[in-house]
């Protein structure tokens, strides 16, 4: 069962320059929420940004990883309320 730390490391290893904050929000090792900041998102739509992160986990999403809530940000951008 992956930990929040595992998820964070895999995202940061797969997406160059990415920084991820990951929370296991049920504590069960299968529902995670991640905020990922990366230059690689520049010029991509939100759908494309989320796809980049989902691709790290392939078929594990919907399998062992039941949910991965995502928020993607560009390093220069402060999230708007």
């Amino acid at each position, binding site marked *: 069962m992956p930990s929040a730390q595992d998820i964070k490391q895999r995202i940061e290893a797969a997406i160059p320059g990415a920084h991820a904050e990951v929370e296991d929000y049920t504590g069960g090792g299968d529902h995670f929420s991640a905020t990922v900041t990366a230059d690689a998102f520049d010029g991509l739509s*939100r*759908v494309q940004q*989320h*796809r980049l992160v*989902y691709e790290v986990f392939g*078929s594990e*999403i*919907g399998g062992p990883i039941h*949910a*991965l*809530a*995502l*928020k993607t940000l560009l390093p220069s951008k402060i999230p*708007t*309320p």
Partner: protein
Amino acid sequence: MSTSQFEPLPMSASQPPGAPVSSDESNPIHDAIAGAIAEHKVILFMKGTPEAPACGFSARTVAALQSLDTPFAAVDVLPDPRIRQELTAISDWPTIPQLFVDGELLGGCDIVTEMYESGELAEALR
């Protein structure tokens, strides 16, 4: 809610019992999903129905659409696992719900919620 319309895809009708096994070039579920996406300006693939969502993420997405008074078609992916398989093959998106606007994937629950909160969703649905 009165703003939503639930339209089940004709899955069972497209493959009557005893029908010949479909070959690779004939995929009625794939075609029904692609057709539904093309036909409806706003269509949500979800777990459960707008009246009875079967998942918190689907419920949140429905709530965003309903609070904008957006008419939308909805398809429940739960009755047949092939619906989700074919949908994911079409959209290249692994999770449910999935919201399509004008034939394009707008996003899943996170993106729809983010766009709702920023006011972008109302713009996109206009």
